[in-house]
Structures are given as C-alpha cells and as structure tokens.
C-alpha cells in the first residue's frame, strides 16, 4: 500500500509540476523544410527565408505544398521570429532538410548560424548546409523546382551525390566536428541559382565553398572538388575519361570509380617536410573506344599506368591550388602532420603554416573488367 501511495504521489506530482509541459500537437506546428540565411553588410541585418510545408486535402490523401516566408532582424533569431509571426504557427526546425547560407552571410561567418541552430530547443545535427553563390533567399522563394518542393529537391540532390562526387554534402554535425577539430577547414557544397528569361528557375549544386575558420574564403570548382575528394577519402563514385593511351592516340576509355581509399603520411626528406598521399581507387571500364583490348595484359597495365599519372597530376594541381592559391587548409594538413608524425609536428611548433608543407600524391588504381551492372543510384 505504501508503494502504491508513492507511485500515485509521483504521478500526481508529475501531473501538477510537469502538467503536460511541451505537449504540442503536430498539426499545430509548421514543418520547416528549408532555411535560407542572408546578411546585408550595409543594413547590418540578417534576412531569413523559411520554407515550410503545408498540408491540404482529405485525411487519407493529403498534398504538401510549400510556403516561403521572409523575416528580417539584427540577429538570426529575431529574423526567424518575425517569419514565425507571419506564419502564425510554431516553427518546427528539427526536421528541416537544408540550410542555404548566402554568400555575404558566409563571408560574415557561419559561427552565428551554427550558434543559433544549436541553441534551438530541438537542434537537428543531420541538416545539410550549403553555400549559395548569391542570395540564398532567392532559392527558397522558388516554391518548386521540377515539380518538387525546392528544399526537398536540394536534399534529394545531396542524397544522390554518390553518383557524381562533384560536391561533398556536409551535415551540421560534420561541420561542427571540423570546426572543433583544429587543423582543418570547412568545405561546404556550393549551390547556384539561375533564372531564365521565361522566368524558369534552375538550380545546380556544383563544387564547394572553402572556408577559412568560419568565413568563406573561395569557391572550388566541380572538377577540383572531385579530385580533392580522393584526398579527403570521400569518393564514392565518379567517372574518369582517358583520351589516348600510349601510342594509341585515338583511344577513349571511360572508367567508373567504385571506391577509393587514401593513406596520408607526413615525412621529412632532405630536411623538407611533406605529406605523401597514397590513393587507391578501384574502377571498372564502362566504355572503350579503341581497336585494342584494354581488359587484357599488357594493354591493361599501360592503361593503369597512364590513369595513375593523370590522376596524380590532377589531384596535385587541385590540392596545390586550394592550399597555395586559396590559402585554406581543407585537406587538414596540420592534422595529418600531428596524427602521422608527432615528432615532426613538435619540431615545426604550433604556429607552422600548412603552406610550408609540400604534398606528393601517388595513385595506384585497380582497374577491373567491364562493368555493365552498376549499383543502384539513390531514389531507385
């Protein structure tokens, strides 16, 4: 009986002290699917476009339609609050799909954006972050792209990145990890918006936006992003085309990358520190326009050698461009030195610049036979 009284007391106290606090019906919430954040240096204010999903129809056959609302304020919270008032329902941000950061906002720094996201009552660490080459709000003000709600369309594109590797999707938790982890800079996918004369809007995700600390430093084009992905160990698919193999100048061989792994090691040779990247991709021949059979020895060895050389050059060029021209350590050079050669890291001291470290790339591709059966692409 005493135990029974204790249980009843707990339930009673829970009821009067808790009182169903935080009880919210899902139809009283406004489902946010995408957020676009812009910053105006002149006005010193943020402009936030919130794209929400609104449902209509019968209980069993409901259609979702987008509703985009803009809010402005000195802080992101204030801007979002204004947008929320316009919508008239509590915004539910936890399940938002994408956050698009405008170029100016990215240049101003992404710390305030991440800070606002993490202070949200239900932060979603799985939300995708992108950087728009222009104003981010314009993108989400478009209700639909190809008959799909814009924010959902962008998310689908990011989910199917497996088939291209021309951009590297980043979720919030990955960005936070990189920012917290000293020795590497953030790289977010870049999104471009175009509106044709017939007012037909198109968007494309291509390449990356490289950051220095939390500020946008430069854009990396799609090809360079693809080659950097080998060093970042984020290659999951992609196509390599080799024109001319040895004496066979007319040969055109297309290879589909299946996977790739990378090993990085900081070394010192002749007193000069450098990092050696050993990239081991595996690929299948998807098209072969040649009179020779590159699936057989010795042509296969020759093809392998030339593809290795081609990749080594392209990857090195891309890496050097990012490190020396853009001056951003998206490859995590400092981190690699620390992890793979601690004595060297200590010798260089904490203040060494990643630009002082040279890099060398070695590729050893594994070319398999002809590939007709491919993996399913996302959405199939």
């Amino acid at each position, binding site marked *: 009986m005493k*135990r*029974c009284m204790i*249980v009843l007391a707990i*339930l009673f106290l*829970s*009821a009067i002290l*808790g*009182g*169903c606090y*935080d*009880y*919210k*019906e*899902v*139809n009283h*919430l406004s*489902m946010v699917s995408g957020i676009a954040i812009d910053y105006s240096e002149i006005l010193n204010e943020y402009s936030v476009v919130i794209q929400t*999903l609104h*449902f*209509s*129809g*019968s*209980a*069993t056959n*409901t259609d*979702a339609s987008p509703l985009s609302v803009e809010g402005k304020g000195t802080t992101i919270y204030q801007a979002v609050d204004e947008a929320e008032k316009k919508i008239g329902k509590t915004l*539910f941000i*936890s*399940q938002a*799909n994408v956050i698009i950061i405008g170029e100016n906002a990215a240049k101003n720094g992404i710390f305030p954006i991440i800070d606002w996201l993490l202070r949200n009552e*239900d932060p*979603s660490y799985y939300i995708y972050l992108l950087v728009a080459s222009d104003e981010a709000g314009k993108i989400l003000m478009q209700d639909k792209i190809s008959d799909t709600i814009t924010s959902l369309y962008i998310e689908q594109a990011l989910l199917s990145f497996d088939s291209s590797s021309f951009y590297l999707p980043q979720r919030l938790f990955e960005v936070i990890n990189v920012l917290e982890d000293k020795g590497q800079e953030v790289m977010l996918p870049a999104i471009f918006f175009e509106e044709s004369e017939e007012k037909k809007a198109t968007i494309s995700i291509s390449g990356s936006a490289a950051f220095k600390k939390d500020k946008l430093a430069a854009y990396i084009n799609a090809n360079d992003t693809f080659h950097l992905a080998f060093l970042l160990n984020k290659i999951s698919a992609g196509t390599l085309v080799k024109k001319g193999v040895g004496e066979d100048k007319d040969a055109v061989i297309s290879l589909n990358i299946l996977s790739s792994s990378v090993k990085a090691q900081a070394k010192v040779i002749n007193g000069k520190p450098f990092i050696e990247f050993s990239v081991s991709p595996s690929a299948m021949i998807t098209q072969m326009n040649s009179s020779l059979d590159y699936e057989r020895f010795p042509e296969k060895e020759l093809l392998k050698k030339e593809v290795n050389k081609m990749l080594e050059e392209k990857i090195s060029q891309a890496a050097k461009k990012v490190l020396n021209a853009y001056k951003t350590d998206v490859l995590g050079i400092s981190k690699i030195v620390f992890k793979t050669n601690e004595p060297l890291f200590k010798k260089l001291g904490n203040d060494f610049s990643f630009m002082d470290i040279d890099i060398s790339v070695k590729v050893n591709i594994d070319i398999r036979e002809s590939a007709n059966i491919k993996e399913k692409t996302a959405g199939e």
Partner: protein
Amino acid sequence: MKFINNSANIKKYINENRLSNDIDTNISIIKEVFSKNDNLICREFSGGRGGNIRCCAFFFDGMVNGQSIHFHIIKPIQQMDSLPKNASLFEHIKNEVISIGEMSEQADISEMARGVMIGDTLLLINGCSKALVLNSKGYLLRPVMEPTSEYILSGPREGFNENVMANLSLIRRKVANEKLKFESINLGEVTKTAAFICYIEGIVNEEVLKRLKEKLSSFDYDSILDTNYLKEHLKKNRFSPFETTGSTERPDVVAAKILEGRVAVIVDGTPVVLTVPHLFLEPFQSNEDYYTNYYYGSLSRIIRVICFMISISLPALFLSLATFNQELLPQTMLQAFAASRQNVTFPTVIEIIALLFIFNALREGGMRMPSGSGQAFSIVGALVLGQAAIDARIVGPITVVVIAFTGISDIMLYKLTSSSTVVRTFLIILSLLLGFYGFVMGLTAVLLHLYSLDSLGVPYMSNVVVFSKQGIKDTIIRAPLWDMITRPFFLSKNRIRKGKK
C-alpha cells in the same frame, strides 16, 4: 405435543451431528438437514424375509446413476435372505449385499450430507446409528474436448473438464509413474471444494512445494469456484498486474510443467489447472512450440515477445513521439503524420484513449455475443468505427493503425491481456505527462517491478536472466529436444533429464 417433542429430538441429533438407532427418526433428521431441497429423493424399502429389514436411500435427482442404485443397492437388499446368526446387520449389508465399489461408513451427519451433495447415495439401515455413503455419482459432465482458449494446430487435443477425478486421470495417463503424487486438500470454508496438489517426487522443487502447502492451508475464503480464487491468494505482491501463477486447461501442458519440477493444483469444478512457480517468459511459450519444428517454435516465441512489447508500449511510444518529441521521428513519417492530422477533431491522446476503449469494447462484445451476430458486429467495428471515423476526421488514420497493431499484438497473448492493459495504461499516462522521458521512466519502473517479483520464492525473471548455455535453451528460443539436457536450475535440483541411459 408429540410432534413438538419429536422436532426437538431431531434438532438435538443434528446439533450433536449424529444419528439415532431408529430409522424413522434418522429419516426425519436427514429430511430436516436437506429441508427445502425438493430434488432430494428419499426411497424407503425393505428386505429380508418378511421385509423385516427396513432401509432408506437418499440421493439427489439428476446427480446419481439410477441403474447403479437400483441394481447394486436396492435390489440386492430387497432380495437378501434373513440375517445369518451372530452377524451384524450393518456389516452384513456393507460386506455381502451391496455391490458398489466405493463406499464409506459415516456416523457424522455433515459428512453424510456432503456425500449426498456430490452425487453419492446415503443408505440408512434400521437399528443402526451409522450410515453408508455409496458412490453412485452419475451427473452429466462435459466430455474431454479441446479447450477453446488454447487451440493448437498439432499435438494432443484433449483438455480438462470440470470433474477433478477425470482431470487427475488425464494427467496420470501422461505421466504413468509411481512417483507422480496427488495430495488431496479441501478448500473453501463453505464449499469444501476438493483440490489436489500434483507433483513428481524427486523432481519437484521441495521449497516451492512446502511454500505452496503453507499458502493453501492458510486459504480462508468461504468458497472456491475457480482456480483464479487461488491465484490471487498465492500472489505475494497483491497489487502487481503480472501473474505469478500459471494456468492451463491442457493435460499435456501440466505434465510438461510438473516434469520440469513445477507443482500443479487441480480444483474440482473448473477445467483450469494452476501451475507454480510461474515465471515471466512462460506465457510466451506454447506447448505447440515443442510439437513443431524448433526453428518455427523459436521464431514463434520471439514474435510473441515482440508482440508483447508492442502491445504494452506502442500507443505510449506513439503518443510521446507524436506530441512531445517529434524530432525523434523520421522526417517522412513525421510529414505523413502531420498530413494525416490536418483538421482532425480530437487531440492525439483522446484519439488513443477512445480507440483503445472502442477496441476493448469490440473485443469484449465479440467474446460474449451470440455467434449469429458476428457478421454485423464486424461490419460495425471495422467499417463504421474505422473508416467512417477517419473520413469524418474524428481520428487520424495513423492512430487507427497504431491501435489496430496494438490490438492484434494484444490478442495474440490473451493470457497477458490483463497485465498488458494495466502496463499500457500506466505508460500512456506517463507519456502524456512527461513525453518520451515519461515513457522511458515508465518502462524502467515496469522492469524494476518485474525484477522485484517472485513466484513462491523463485524470482519471476529467473528465466530471463540466464547466462548458461543449457539454461537459455528453453527461454525465448526453443532449442532441439536432443540438445535440452537439463531442467531449469531454478525449478529442480534433479537437473539431468536426458542421457541417463
């Protein structure tokens, strides 16, 4: 005046609980004991040469075998010769005239009355202050048939009925061993119902047997009409929704349980037999698991456990996720849920409670209604209350799916329905108050409660917390019989059950 004296005389004998030597007085005594019982038959007859031996048989119409009374009691007495010299009339009739197998001498009026009430015939003989209670039971009994609540696809079809003796015979047929013991005990101050404690000597857990006997001897309720009366008495934690005694209507189940070291209690008047100790995983185990392929048996058990989990937790989990912690739902599910809840009249919690109420009402109605109304009932239940309620936006379709799934899971384990209903309600209340935290808190409390229970001294969760290779073989899975070498350690000290030859 004579009548008053006679009446006082009879009351005196009744108070003293004994008979007189005069048969007329004794007839009056028995008639007085059974006064206002119009189906009591009093058959006076005489035998011996010249009819000098007067007798009277008492029995209840409809409870006796008339042929047996006629051919083995009345006729032999009527046709008997005169009494041999120096012979006692009572002993002569008992030993040489009546040809009934089971009989007893009784001088005690209450014991005579008890015999008559259970279908025996009371024979009064002139000049004797004792009477014979002769077994002439012949009441109608339900035949041995398959229990409707424990259908199986393959395996023995017989089930217990309401006759305790028939039930004992069913068990003895399964376990033909002299170590199988049936200890008799009468329960209920008023009903004096016959009950038997059944176990196998040498295998039984002696501690459990001792505790059971102590518990049964302290049973002081006036009646016992079903074994559930005992269930509540044997429960240590009286407020727990979980059963710590098992029940079955199948002799093969009882035989299997006592062969593992358990004790069975068989009560007259009910086909339900109790088994103790009863542990947590037992309701998930069916006798059919042993009669079918062990892969299928194991899979069935796992499905039952999952269904129990769903049955107790799904509505509360759904409530907490749908109204408090939406961020934990997958995005597409949340969107589907948000879409389905547009313009729905009631809040989710009211939907859940209302649908659970309707489901329970339908189930209760389905169980007790005449079979002819079934079709109409299904139409009303499935169409009117399901589809129409969704179309009228009284409830959301996802809530209906959740409650339907809960209902199906619940029906699968009918023996756990009472406990799962209590736990489910408890979890719904906590989820309503505290969301997902409340749900987890509730589950933890239920788990702690389960670990605090015991069934006659054996921890209730003994068969869950098993780490030995042999011990785990008959728990959530059913290992092949050739690999089940030992009995559960918590049930019997005589552990080896295979490989003695």
